[in-house]
């Protein structure tokens, strides 16, 4: 190994080193460039999301407005039908026929309000408690509420509990060991009379409500009995009392 050879080797090493440095610098530059590109990409994605949210909120606003306006239009269509009906009655037929039509509408609404004595086909449910003065009576209040809801869902058009007519705003409330219905204290056993389509009333009870009552009575003692009857009588609610139950609200049409 002479000096010349050593020098040459050094030179080669230097060249290799230089190449390495160049390569490193190039890689660094590429990495920086990639980093910048990625961050730009990321930023634009974030911005895109923001834009999407913004336009989504304008879209939901528009949707809400459509829902609002549709409801308004629907209500107006209803009012138009009513106005047409009123005019039609006034314009057609003899005086007797006009009165007959109005009376018919009047009676339907009075019946729907639960103010007339009615009869019809349906079922009678009896809830017998092992101890009628037990707290279990009030525990069953929520079950009775579900039962009434289920009956309404399956064609019940008139319901009474121990003779108390169930109206739109009738509560079934647990108080100690009895129930309050229409503000009246009712003591067990309970007889729930229901007028409606017997077949659909029957099918609704079997699915969910009867098993619930069965398990309730197997815990607390008692029975859930259902009887089908062709002539169930249900009394109307008193008109005087219903006046007190509607004294805090005003008919929009009348107050205008």
């Amino acid at each position, binding site marked *: 190994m002479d000096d010349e050879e050593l020098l040459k080797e050094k030179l080669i090493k230097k060249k290799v080193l230089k190449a390495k440095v160049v390569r490193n610098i190039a890689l660094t530059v590429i990495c920086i460039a990639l980093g910048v590109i990625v961050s730009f990409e990321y930023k634009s994605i974030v911005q895109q999301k923001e834009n999407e949210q913004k336009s989504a909120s304008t879209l939901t606003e528009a949707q809400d407005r*459509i829902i609002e306006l549709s409801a308004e239009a629907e209500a107006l269509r209803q009012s138009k039908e009513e106005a047409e009906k009123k005019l039609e009655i006034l314009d057609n037929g003899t005086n007797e026929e006009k009165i007959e039509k109005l009376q018919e509408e*009047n009676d339907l*609404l009075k019946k*729907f309000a639960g103010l007339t004595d009615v009869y019809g086909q349906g079922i009678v449910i009896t809830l017998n408690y092992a101890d009628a003065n037990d707290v279990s009576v009030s525990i069953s209040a929520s079950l009775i509420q579900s039962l009434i809801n289920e009956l309404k869902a399956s064609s019940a058009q008139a319901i009474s509990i121990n003779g108390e007519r169930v109206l*739109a705003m009738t509560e079934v*409330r647990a108080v100690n060991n009895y129930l309050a219905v229409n503000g009246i204290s009712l003591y067990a056993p309970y007889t729930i009379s229901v007028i409606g389509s017997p077949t659909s009333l029957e099918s609704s009870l079997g699915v969910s409500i009867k098993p619930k009552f069965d398990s309730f009575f197997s815990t607390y003692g008692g029975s859930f009995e259902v009887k089908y009857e062709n002539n169930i009588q249900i009394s109307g609610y008193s008109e005087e009392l219903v006046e007190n139950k509607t004294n805090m609200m005003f008919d929009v*049409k009348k107050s205008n």
Partner: protein
Amino acid sequence: MPADDRNKDTIEYKTKKQKIIAFSLFSMIFVCLGVFVTVQARTAIKNVEKEKQEEQATLKSYEDSIKSLEEDIAVLSGEISEMDAEYDEKMEQLASSDNDFFRILEFYNDSIAKYGFYAGTTDVTGKGIEISIDDGNPTSGTVSNFLLVHDTTLLNIVNELRASGAQAVSVNGERIVADTEILCVGTGIRVNGKKIFAPFSIKAIGNSDRLYSTFINSAVYKNIITADLLVSVIESDSVNIAGYTGFSAENVKYLYDSAEE
């Protein structure tokens, strides 16, 4: 020396070869990256444009429906006031030409309005409360089933309102009448035969202080809070509740009048 020369040549050759390989490798990587970045950017731009176009198209269709609905409402309002005016005019004529018959008609009109008011088919207003309730935020809870507003939740709220003296109640605009059901159907809840969805808005007219304090202190409200549902209650001097719109003879078809027997 020739051996050294050969050695030197081999080293130089090797470095050259390495350089070429490195160069071509880098070039290929750069070309690939370049192509990749351009394609990416292009599709991104295309997607953004496409999305924007689609959004604008939807927004435009929404705006069109809003416009046509507003027109419908204006037309309907006009028609109704025309018919009402015509009716009033005819009744006035009748009052002077056939007063007895006019009085009978007035009697029935008043009576129909009264029973409609009792039955819940008319729009009513009064003091009361408004409850909003929505499914809970899934991130705040553990069991997602726990965070949904169920039919029983709504039924319990309505029963609580009834017990605290509510005189009129509606759920998402559906008036609670004598035969109203609140029942779970698939993803929604059936009220008056119509399917409604969360968020729910429950309005009640009555003694607003009593409605408010009873509801806030009820077991139903505590359960709603425990279940992490989103709920808010406000008292208001003017709660407007629409009448039941589906009334027909069908609603009382199983009921026979005992007086007519």
